[in-house]
């Protein structure tokens, strides 16, 4: 069977009002005491500016608008230096780090950003600089913008000889739920602290992430950052993508023990049983209610669809872009064994034109809900806060709650601050 599906053929794209996620500005703002300077044509700034305003970051962001003359004259690099100077002269408090965002234009100009970073650090002592790319032209590359920005924010970490018994969770944008068994499991393996960038209140605290014994990569967007941190800081990493499949979770805890070279005395079987009970309870409540899911809600929608199908849920559709890696395998399983599950890319114009108005269905994710106008919608994006058996239990509770107390999609979109 082919790895691809005809629905993924290249075409015009439609972007629904429910499309999106954190956006690069919001991800970059995770760096405490940092400031962002966009060097871009005015039009490129719209999305980020609205997003920053909505999320209360407008005092940490500035724009230097490029004009045609700046681009053709070669004065661009010089202008970046001047723009930084201007920004610093106007800020009451000096930031610890400045993220400089360039756009697709820079991909054509080939500015030597590495050299410019060194020059900036020499000129503005005491401030760390990192260049980030808001360049959707690279969306299909091996380092698309959501992965590149994570790499660039963690490149701000400075090498240290200290290696402590801590681990970092990277890739995920919010920390794993505090009730998750991962914390106690890691403690049982001798790990004293589990760090996430969003929990660092100061830049100094953020820098302590450089002392970690290991990076746990919970989302594919964190992998490039992990590889870079291994090369630059010597921190090994372990890929533990958020999964809701119980056997996978078992394996992940095995992998963790192997990676840290210790064995845990913690009995996880009780937690697995709880997760199984939660699944059974949810299945009983939802019955044959069609379930639809999208690739913005979870990083691995095909794996989740396959798992839910195997657990007896009535999965009706997956709205996701062309899968890569292990996701291809799950898509093939779906195509082969449950062809009734519709697979559609959410931005294909026909996805909106088809009669997707299912109404009596439950959508996991805003985009699936918008496309199908489903009555029930589960409030989940980016697998936020999920991991392990606790993640499965939480996921199932959210599924049930979204059925028992239906959410209003527009309210959810507004509350989340999605910007088109």
């Amino acid at each position: 069977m082919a790895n691809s599906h005809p629905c993924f053929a290249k075409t015009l794209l439609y972007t629904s009002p429910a499309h999106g996620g954190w956006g690069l500005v919001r991800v970059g703002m995770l760096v405490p005491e940092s400031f962002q300077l966009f060097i871009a044509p005015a039009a490129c700034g719209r999305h980020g500016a609205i997003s920053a305003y909505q999320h209360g970051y407008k005092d940490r962001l500035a724009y230097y608008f490029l004009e045609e003359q700046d681009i053709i004259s070669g004065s661009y690099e010089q202008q970046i230096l001047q723009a930084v100077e201007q920004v610093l002269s106007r800020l009451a408090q000096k930031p610890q780090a400045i993220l400089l965002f360039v756009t697709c234009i820079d991909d054509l100009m080939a500015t030597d950003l590495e050299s410019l970073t060194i020059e900036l650090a020499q000129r503005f002592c005491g401030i760390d600089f990192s260049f980030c790319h808001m360049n959707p032209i690279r969306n299909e590359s091996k380092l698309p913008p959501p992965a590149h920005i994570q790499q660039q924010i963690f490149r701000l970490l400075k090498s240290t000889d200290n290696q402590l018994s801590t681990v970092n969770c990277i890739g995920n944008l919010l920390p794993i739920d505090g009730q998750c068994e991962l914390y106690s499991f890691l403690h049982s393996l001798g790990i004293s602290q589990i760090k996430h960038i969003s929990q660092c209140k100061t830049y100094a605290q953020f820098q302590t992430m450089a002392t970690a014994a290991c990076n746990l990569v919970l989302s594919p967007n964190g992998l490039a950052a992990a590889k870079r941190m291994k090369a630059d800081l010597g921190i090994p990493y372990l890929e533990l993508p958020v999964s809701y499949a119980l056997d996978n979770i078992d394996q992940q805890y095995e992998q963790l023990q192997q990676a840290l070279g210790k064995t845990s005395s913690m009995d996880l079987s009780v937690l697995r049983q709880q997760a199984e009970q939660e699944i059974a309870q949810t299945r009983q409540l939802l019955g044959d209610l069609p379930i639809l899911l999208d690739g913005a809600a979870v990083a691995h929608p095909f794996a989740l669809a396959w798992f839910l199908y195997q657990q007896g849920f009535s999965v009706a559709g997956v709205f996701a872009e062309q899968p890569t890696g292990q996701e291809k395998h799950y898509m093939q399983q779906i195509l082969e064994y449950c062809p009734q599950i519709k697979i559609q890319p959410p931005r294909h114009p026909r996805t909106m034109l088809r009669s997707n108005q299912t109404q009596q269905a439950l959508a996991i994710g805003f985009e699936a809900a918008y496309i199908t106008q489903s009555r029930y919608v589960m409030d989940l994006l980016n697998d936020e806060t999920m991991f392990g058996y606790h993640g499965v239990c939480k996921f199932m509770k959210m599924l049930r709650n979204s059925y028992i107390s239906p959410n209003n999609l527009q309210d959810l979109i507004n509350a989340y601050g999605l910007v088109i």
Partner: protein
Amino acid sequence: MLKIAIYGKGGIGKSTTTANLSAALSTMGYRVLQIGCDPKADSTKNLVGRSIPSVLEQLQKNPHGLTREDLVFPGFNSTFCVESGGPTPGIGCAGRGIITAFEKLEELGVYETYAPDIVFYDVLGDVVCGGFAMPMRDGYADYVFIVTSGEMMALYAATNIASAIKNFGKRNYAKLGGIILNQRNIANEQALTEQMAKEINSQLIASLPRDGIVQQAEAQCKTVVEAFPNSGMAACYQELASKVLEVCHG
């Protein structure tokens, strides 16, 4: 791994000189990789004996499944040849083409796999944009050599290239290794070129005579070093190869 970029005005003989340098160094026992950075994609023609598909052409045909063997072709005496290629004349961005080609070569681990002792970047004409300056950046060429004749436009282009190298001096970019005179037999050619080299604080490292044997070799799609190994011109290229190594190794 020694990385060298050859710059100069268009049509001045960069590719001929570079291909002969690659051939000469290969006969001295070095593993050489030559990367043509010209949208015309004809830098390595005389090393391979035919035109090879460029990285950009191959990328267009097969965006996600390229292998190293699709891009790197064997040339004379176990040299390795790559052409970055460029867009359709009149549209697109040639500079971006070079960047994309370089990124692809790195992604496929070409340098590590072929492990050349010497890499030549044969770069089109003048330094006109960031893409064409790529080969002189940190991580790419260690040294730049400029091919010129004694003609005013060629000398002007050479001065521009030297000025770009100087502008980037505080960065860890390539150093200017020297000037190679590819004679056109104009009046005072050697003196004019030496004067220019002096003005840009560089040195004339070789003066290649104008010799019809170069065209004879090209007519056979070969370098002089391959087609006429015992000729005086082949000896000139061998001497140039030794001189380039001497400059680079200090």
